[in-house]
């Protein structure tokens, strides 16, 4: 038991170490925030032009779309799949993974902590300025408060679970490097389809119904579509509660599967380099 405890402590220490490291890149984050902000504005205008042309009512209002767009820009670092940790890739490709395997840690959990902390520090630096500025914009473009405090609480819960789920998904990209060696192509494909199904390219409510059915069957939308739509008030509390259970289910399933695959590939790991 004692042994186990020191395990956990080392993960926590590593977590804070990584966060501190991530917070070093303040200028880059600031530039990133500005880019994101401009990007957000562009999307606002495009959707506004679309909404001005519509004759019948849409499944989601423009104000709700605005909320989703700002949250997407603010928390982009949480949810983009192409955001990748080059350390892990180089570890696998250069063979320095041999050192990692010598350490008395569990590799899956270790990487998991590394990836989560990287995303957390990156997003925390970027999200705050974006959210602040977006909140003070004039009426149709501004980020509002969610309809009730309850929505807000569920937003936070699902956002947090979504982050864990996303890292569990992204773990497979790293594991696949053991097999493919060059991850760029397959990674990009995986990332772009993942983002599409997560509603990052076109919001899920605006998709045709048949596509929505596919999206609902995949894990991707439970990363960011769910929390953002809860915030916007487009998903009610009863559905939010169901979504949390589904999120938990996906996390459990993907973590177990990921650990299994990692174990398997480690058994026949080839250490590269000399």
């Amino acid at each position: 038991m004692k042994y186990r405890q020191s395990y956990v402590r080392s993960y926590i220490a590593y977590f804070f170490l990584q966060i501190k490291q991530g917070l070093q890149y303040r200028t880059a984050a600031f530039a990133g925030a500005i880019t994101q902000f401009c990007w957000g504005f562009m999307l606002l205008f495009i959707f506004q032009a679309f909404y001005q042309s519509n004759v019948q009512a849409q499944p989601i209002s423009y104000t709700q779309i605005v909320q989703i767009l700002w949250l997407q820009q603010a928390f982009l670092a949480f949810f983009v799949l192409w955001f990748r940790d080059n350390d892990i890739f180089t570890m696998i490709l250069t063979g320095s993974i041999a050192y990692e395997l010598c350490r008395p840690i569990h590799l899956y959990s270790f990487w998991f902590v590394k990836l989560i902390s990287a995303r957390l520090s990156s997003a925390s630096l970027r999200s705050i300025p974006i959210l602040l500025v977006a909140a003070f914009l004039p009426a149709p473009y501004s980020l509002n408060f969610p309809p009730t405090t309850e929505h807000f609480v569920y937003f936070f819960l699902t956002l947090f679970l979504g982050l864990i789920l996303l890292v569990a998904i992204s773990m497979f990209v790293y594991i696949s490097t053991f097999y493919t060696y060059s991850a760029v192509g397959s990674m990009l494909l995986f990332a772009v389809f993942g983002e599409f199904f997560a509603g990052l390219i076109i919001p899920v409510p605006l998709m045709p119904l048949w596509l929505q059915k596919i999206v609902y069957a995949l894990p991707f939308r439970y990363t960011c579509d769910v929390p953002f739509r809860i915030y916007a008030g487009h998903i009610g509390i009863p559905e939010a509660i169901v979504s949390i259970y589904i999120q938990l289910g996906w996390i459990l399933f993907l973590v177990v599967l990921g650990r299994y695959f990692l174990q398997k590939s480690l058994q026949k790991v080839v250490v590269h380099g000399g």
Partner: protein
Amino acid sequence: MKLYFRYISMLLKCQMEYRTSFLLLSFAQFFVPFLVFVSIYLLFQRFPDIAGWSLYEVAFCYGIIHVCFSISECVGRGFDSFSPLVRKGLLDQFLLRPRSILLQVLGSQFEFTRIGRLIQSLVVLGFAIVHLDIIWNFQAIVTLIFMIVGGIFIFIGIFMLGATLCFWTIEGIELVNILTDGGREISQYPLNIYPEGIRRFFTFIIPFGVVNYIPLLFLVGKLEASSMLVSILYTATPLAGILFIFPCIFIWNLGLRHYSSTGS
């Protein structure tokens, strides 16, 4: 020029060494923008039009700008990944050789995998052209070619500006992406859907509007040419995009003079 093709054929051989990786990357390059177009398509299922523009007209805008972008990304990759050259002091090698720096930087990289993106853009452009009833006379074809050429020059100009910044900042800057990626995304829709300020900026400062929006107005007949001269003027508007490269070359040379080597 001969030297440039030498450079390119060397790079092609290099990239072909990793064939599977090359194919996969080209394949991925096809799908990345393709899903963006699919989204536009899906949005048009919900909404009848955008500021009076039909799906096919938007597809035309999109196709043009993406053809330009993918070609200039192939060619101008050397500028796009310029910061390591400065950071590691590799640029010194270039300066020692008795050839123009511009040529050497252009020849230092050529991204063949963008062929996937190019095919995607051509497919969309074809899709648009088939559905739009533009009369493809000689003038229209010339306009189309001018549009593409003008667009390529604008993108390469922006890549150069980004590279020039590296002389001062050493690191590459994400902000430049607002102009390249952002400019590309913005001008894949006709510019009149945006507020006045944005439209002006992308017409007179970074002239993307000149290579797709204005000629498109002319091609689909939303702008009537009152006389022969005016119609020739419309055909020639995309050429204004080429003018954009001159201030960029000037600023680049300014930066080059400022360059002091780093590294050891």
